[in-house]
């Protein structure tokens, strides 16, 4: 009788251990990841650490939504630009949070 009890208890311990190892540590969810991005500085670093190693690219490191203009899905092969094509680049820098006229 005593040895049957020991066997049953041992099996229970074994089952509990297996569950703890296999099922008790859920994979981080997307929601948890997005919360970490706006958490403490250390939280954002932890989030970066949890991500699996991937080839560097413009789009895959962070869950920041891409703007429509960031055409990362564009065809890799595209014809050369037409000779003599005009371009305009409008640019700013060091606006330092100014929204109103100043100076």
């Amino acid at each position, binding site marked *: 009788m005593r040895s049957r009890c020991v066997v049953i208890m041992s099996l229970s311990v074994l089952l509990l251990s297996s569950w703890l190892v296999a099922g008790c540590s859920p994979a981080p969810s997307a929601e948890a990841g997005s919360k970490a991005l706006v958490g403490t500085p250390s939280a954002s670093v932890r989030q970066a650490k949890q991500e699996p190693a991937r080839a560097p690219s*413009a789009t895959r*490191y962070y869950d*920041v939504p891409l703007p429509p203009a960031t055409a990362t899905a564009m065809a890799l092969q595209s014809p050369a630009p037409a000779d003599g094509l005009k371009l305009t680049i409008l640019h700013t820098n*060091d606006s*330092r949070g100014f929204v109103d*006229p100043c100076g």
Partner: protein
Amino acid sequence: MPKGGVARRATKIKGIREQAEHPVLLVDAGSTLFGQMLALQSEGRVIIEAMNAMGYDAMAVGELDLAKGVDTLIARAGEARFPLLSCNLVSAQEQKPLLKPYALLERGGVRFGILGVTEPQALDAPGVREVAQVLDPVTSIQKYLPEVKKQSDVLIVLSHLGVEEDRALAQAVPEIDLIVGGRSKRLMSVPDIVGSTVITQMGYDGEWLGRLDMTLDSQGQVRDPQSAVIELGPDVAEDAELKALVASYKERFPQPTTEATK
């Protein structure tokens, strides 16, 4: 007379876009989110909303963009409809980029590769050095160069390194077609040319809008760059949408008056 303001800037941008029959890009070289009171009070939200409304295509991260820490910057990047870029601002421990290192976009049949690069002084903001690191700009750009180059016709670097550093960068990485810079607060009515790289930047505090017109040849090489300084003076009408946006933020975040600060 006071110059600048996002409402005047928006008017000019809209006008140029409406008149242009060719691709127009709108970019910012950084140190943009923080500094002025309303921007600080709103933790940079007013700036991101204004830039969303103006249709910015990309922005580099500079020193002042980290003034409220890494988490605030990443949160604002999540609200922006354009990428905030830095290829050399990385996490301190694993040295992974904290933001997108580059963006690819296509406009009018031209593929643009845009890299952002941040100055080392960006680490001086409170709490930033503990979680972030700024890697060598040249090495970082060279790391991403092959994959960006093969997917783009025109390679642009948005740099907050300073104009002397931009010149050195152009010498070290001659594949760069254009460097839109910041930090030196130079008003460059004539762009610098180093090798075949065009270098420009446009003042400070949002008082001017820079315009660079150029022609591309069939190899994607930039030809005949012409720079223009657009002063945002009182003669420029204020865009109603941007004016209302700023007013709404002022209601939410009352500005301290002289009496209140006594």
